C-alpha cells in the first residue's frame, strides 16, 4: 500500500505544478500592474494605479480597442449568418455529397495552423488587389470563427423536433415563415452562446491578424508590437484589463452554455 500512497503524492504534486504553471505567470502580471519589483521581489509598499492612468492617455490603444470591438462584432455577425445558412443546408440533406464536403471545408481554417489560414488570405487579398486593413481582418476572423458557430447551431438543429416543422408546413406556413417563427426562435440561445464564444476568440486572435493587418491594429497586435519593443510596465496594466474582460466573456459563455443545455434537455424530452 505504501507504493500507492507514493503514487498519489506524486500525482498530486504534478497536478499542483500544472495549475501553478497555468496561473502563477498571470498572477504575477496582475500583481506587477499595481506594484513595482526590486531584485526579483515584489515591493509591497509601492501600490499605485499610475500605470492604469497612463493607459488612458495612450490614444493608439484606444484606437486598437475600437478596432478590436469593430472587427469582433462585424466578423461574428457575418459568420453567424453564414454558419446558420451552412448548418441549415447540411441539416436538410445530411448525407448528400455537398453536405459532406462542406463539413470538411468549413473546418479547415479552424483546424489548420493559424499561420496557414493567415497567409492564404494574405496571398489571396494581394492577388485580388484588396489592400490590407480592417476589412481584411474582418474576413480573416469571420472565416476563423465560422466553424465553431456552425458546429453549435448544427447540434441544436439536429435535436430540434421535426414534428414542429412539419406542423408548421401542414398549417400552411411558407418556408420563410417556418424559418422565421419556428426555427429561428429555437436558434436564439445557441447563436448567443456561439456568438460570445466566437467574439472571445476574435478578441484574442493574433496570428491570422498579424498577416492581414495594415496600418490599423487590433488590440492583440498593438500589444504584440509593445512587447517586442521591450518591457514597459504599463503592459501589465493593459493585460490585467484584457484578462478581466476575457474572464467576463468566459463567465458569459458558461452561463449561456448552461441555459442552452437546459433548453436542449427540454426539447429532447418533448420529442
Amino acid at each position, binding site marked *: 500500500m505504501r507504493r*500507492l500512497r507514493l503514487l498519489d503524492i*506524486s*500525482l*498530486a504534486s*504534478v*497536478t499542483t505544478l*500544472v495549475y501553478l*504553471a*497555468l496561473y*502563477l*505567470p*498571470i498572477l*504575477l*502580471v496582475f500583481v506587477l500592474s499595481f506594484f513595482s519589483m526590486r*531584485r*526579483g*521581489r515584489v515591493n509591497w509598499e509601492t501600490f499605485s494605479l499610475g500605470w492604469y492612468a497612463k493607459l488612458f492617455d495612450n490614444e493608439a490603444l484606444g484606437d486598437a480597442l475600437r478596432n478590436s470591438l469593430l472587427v469582433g462584432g462585424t466578423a461574428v455577425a457575418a459568420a453567424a449568418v*453564414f454558419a446558420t445558412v*451552412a448548418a*441549415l*443546408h447540411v*441539416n*436538410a*440533406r445530411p448525407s448528400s455529397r455537398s453536405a459532406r464536403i462542406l463539413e470538411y*471545408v*468549413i473546418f*479547415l481554417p479552424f*483546424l*489548420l*495552423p*493559424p*499561420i*496557414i489560414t493567415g*497567409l*492564404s*488570405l*494574405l*496571398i*489571396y487579398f494581394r492577388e485580388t488587389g484588396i489592400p490590407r486593413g480592417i476589412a481584411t481582418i474582418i*474576413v480573416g476572423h469571420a*472565416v476563423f470563427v465560422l466553424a465553431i458557430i456552425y458546429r453549435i447551431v448544427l447540434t441544436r438543429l*439536429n435535436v*430540434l*423536433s*421535426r414534428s414542429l*416543422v412539419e406542423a408548421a*408546413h401542414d398549417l400552411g406556413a411558407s418556408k420563410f415563415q417556418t424559418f422565421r417563427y419556428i426555427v429561428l426562435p429555437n436558434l436564439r440561445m445557441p447563436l448567443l452562446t456561439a456568438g460570445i464564444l466566437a467574439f472571445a476568440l476574435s*478578441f*484574442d486572435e*493574433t*496570428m491570422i491578424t*498579424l498577416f492581414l493587418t495594415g496600418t490599423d491594429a487590433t488590440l*492583440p497586435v498593438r*500589444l*504584440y508590437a509593445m512587447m517586442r519593443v521591450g518591457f514597459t510596465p504599463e*503592459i501589465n496594466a493593459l*493585460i490585467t484589463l484584457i*484578462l478581466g474582460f*476575457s474572464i467576463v466573456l468566459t463567465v458569459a459563455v*458558461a452561463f449561456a452554455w448552461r441555459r442552452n443545455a437546459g433548453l436542449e434537455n427540454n426539447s429532447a424530452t418533448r420529442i
Partner: protein
Amino acid sequence: MTVGAGRSRPGIGDYLLWSVIALFIIVPLGCFLAYGFFSVVDNAIVYRPTVGNFAELLSNPSYRATFLRTIRMAFEVSAINLVLGYATAYFIWLRPPGMRNFLVIALAIPLLMSYIIKIYAMRGVLGTNGLLNSALMALGIVDEPVSALLFNLTAVRITLSVVLLPFMVLPIYIALERIPASVLHAASDLGANELQTFTGIILPLSLPGGIVGAMFTFVLASGDFLAPELVGGIEGFTYGRLIFSQFGLAFNWPLGAALSILLMCVALGVIFVARRLGNPRWQR
C-alpha cells in the same frame, strides 16, 4: 432529424453559401498552394510554375536544420505534456465530483485567455529577475540568477509546454470520464488488482485521448511563431519564424508559401496518424 423541407432542390441560399465558401476558404487556400510553385525576381513575383522553392528548402542546410529542430522541439513538448497531462487528468478523475468540476473549469479558463498574454506572462517567470530564478535562489539551488532560462529554445519549450497543457489534459480527462463504471466494477469483481485494472483497462481506454492531445500540441507547437519570437531570442529561431520572416523583410512570399506547404503536410500527416491511433479498431 432534419428541419428543412426534406430533399428540396438547392435554392439561391445554397448557391450563395457555396460561393462564399469558395470565395473565402477554397480559393485562398488554392492561391496559397499555387504560390509555393512561383518564384521572385527583383522583388516581383514570377507566375511560372517551378519546384525551385522546394529544391531550395531541401538543399539549404539552414532551412533543413531549422525544420528538424522545430519538429524535434514540438515532439518533445508533446511528449512532456503527455506525461504531465496524463498524471493531471488521472488525478482530477480520481477526485470527488465537486472538486473534479472545479479543477476542470480552472483548466478551461486559461483557454479563453489571450495567447500572447500567456506567452508574455511567461517572460516574467523565466527572466533573470523572474519568479523561477527567485524560487531557485530561495531554495538554495543556485546562488546567482540563471540567465539561461530566457531567450533560447528551452524557454520556447517551457512556454509552449505551459500554454498548451490544457489541450492535453482535457481530452485525456474526457476519455477517462467515458470509461463506464461497470467495466471497472467487473474488473474488480474478477479479482484484478489496481495495477492490473490500470494497465489492462484504464490506460488503453484513455490513451486515445492522450493521442488527440498530443496531436493538438504538436500541430500548434510546430507552427507557432509568437512564442519563439517573444521568448526565444536569436537562439530560439523556429520554422514558424522562418515562414513569418519571408513575409516581412525577406519578401519572398513564394518561398514562405512553400515552407508552409511542408508544415501543412506535416500537420495533416500527424492529424491522419492521430485519427488512426486515437480511434483503435476495437472502438471503430
